């Protein structure tokens, strides 16, 4: 299969017309299939180095200090075959005072026996801003194991925001682990939204250490599980500096024989720090359900709509 055909299939699986993207010279993009980089388009201020490995790639993405990328970098990675391994080693460096965003699509539309691992190390420079959105699109079989791990350092005055979404297709098994060290006057907002069914298994660990004065963080997880799916969420927020502020929020909707568990840990080690947490696990709210049913939706459709709202599919944007 040609590279172009592979790329078209990858984009088709995420509902994006690649020709719209390829026609945008002002939008940077990186396209990866299995262990090969099939396409890279850069814009001023952005540097990418990538090398193929036996079962994946290693890449460094850097945004030069002071550079302001006008549009999010579009990243598309995944595998078209139904089995295989993809390991991605990623280093992201956002220079001091730079601003950048990434919209990543990770797709395994035909997965039956796929293992996808990502180990990312990120450094958000002083006063830099970095926003990362990752959408996973899996097939109907659920035969995929996804293990994304990120270690993030947000330097003084930096802003880091990440949002993970997996609400289309079956999850299979996913083990997300994000850990951020947040320095003075910096922020880290980490969120994940995942919908599981069948025998899907979801484990999410979000951790932030508020190590500097006025450091801020919000850890937010929204999960819906039905059938026999399971979800475990471990959110840990540690504050060791004065005026550090944080909040942990976990919402899980459980249907059928599914099981959900939330373990929020709030660890405050300075009297002038303040951290709150909120966790809600349960069935769909009865009043919401009855409101939608009083508009004519049956119970299943009303439940789907409530979950759709909770998990909130985001629109893909190029600008």
């Amino acid at each position, binding site marked *: 299969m040609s590279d172009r055909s592979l790329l078209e299939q990858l984009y088709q699986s995420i509902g994006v017309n690649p020709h719209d993207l390829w026609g945008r010279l002002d939008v940077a993009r990186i396209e990866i299939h299995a262990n090969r980089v099939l396409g890279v388009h850069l814009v001023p201020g952005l540097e990418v180095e990538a090398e193929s490995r036996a079962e994946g790639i290693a890449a460094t993405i850097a945004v030069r200090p002071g550079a302001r990328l006008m549009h999010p970098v579009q990243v598309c990675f995944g595998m078209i075959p139904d089995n295989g391994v993809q390991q991605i080693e990623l280093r992201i460096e956002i220079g001091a005072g730079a601003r950048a965003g990434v919209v990543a699509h990770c797709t395994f539309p035909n997965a039956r026996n796929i293992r996808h691992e990502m180990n990312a190390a990120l450094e958000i420079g002083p006063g830099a801003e970095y926003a990362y959105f990752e959408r996973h699109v899996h097939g109907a079989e659920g035969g995929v194991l996804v293990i994304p791990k990120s270690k993030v350092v947000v330097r003084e005055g930096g802003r880091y925001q990440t949002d993970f979404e997996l609400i289309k297709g079956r999850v299979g098994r996913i083990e997300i682990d994000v850990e951020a060290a947040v320095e003075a006057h910096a922020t880290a907002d980490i969120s994940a939204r995942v919908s599981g069914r069948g025998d899907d298994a979801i484990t999410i660990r979000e951790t932030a250490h508020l190590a500097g004065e006025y450091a801020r963080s919000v850890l937010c997880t*929204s999960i819906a599980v039905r059938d026999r799916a399971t979800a475990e969420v471990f959110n840990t927020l540690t504050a060791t500096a004065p005026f550090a502020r944080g909040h942990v929020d976990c*919402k899980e909707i459980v249907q059928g024989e599914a099981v959900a568990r939330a373990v929020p840990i709030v660890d405050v080690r300075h009297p002038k720090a303040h951290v709150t947490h909120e966790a809600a696990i349960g069935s769909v*709210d*009865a*009043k*919401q359900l*009855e*409101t*939608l*049913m*009083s*508009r*004519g*939706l*049956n*119970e299943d459709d*009303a439940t789907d*709509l*409530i979950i*759709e*709202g*909770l*998990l*909130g599919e985001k629109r893909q944007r190029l600008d």
Partner: protein
Amino acid sequence: MNTILQLRDIVLTLGGKRILDGLTIDFWEGHIHALIGPNGAGKSTTANLIMGLAGYRNFQGELIYQGESIADWSIDRRARAGITLAWQEPARFEGLSARRFIQAGAKDRSEARVCEVLEEVGLDPGRYADRAVDRTLSGGERKRIELASILAMEPRLVLMDEPDSGIDVEALECIFGALKFFKQQGATVIMITHSLAVLRRAEHAFLVCCGKVVNKGSVEKISRYFEQKCHVCDDRTPTLAELEDIRVGS
């Protein structure tokens, strides 16, 4: 006048207490009705029972809609037959946009129709269509969006529980505007209220007390009666003698 909904000798007991105690009312098609009475009289319970909400389905008596018993119908079946309810305190939906909420029950799900009904309730579609119907909206804004969703549904029978609760004067005017719209569309409205301002927008009024209709008639008659005699019910359940006095007075 055609009767669209009949309640016959409805008895409902909740938590060991008889909330509705032989309630009998006929509602006329295309008319605006008000159920007025003190707190705890059974007004909201009546609306919930008509809508078929959980906890309000195990009652005695007859509930007839357009000539057919609907006692065994689910909420959504009743809604598809044209019955709907505007809650006293509308639900919050985290992440669900006003657009999706309105489209959920709309007959016409087009963007143009969503904009039209938002404008009908005085909300700018450009500002509100994409906003989540959640805690970031005020109570009045949520009430208006709920009303917009009901307008889009084009119902035959609208139950409005305390339409003036928790809203400002401007929002109340929108609700009164919607009443006119329902009237023009030939829909029937049943408002639950203990507000005389709302009562005066109705064409027929029923005074409910202790789960019964104790008086009915024109809005003028019932509002005068409510103002003059119903103070006995404001803070406590009236005695049998007081109830009898109310009946004699009618």
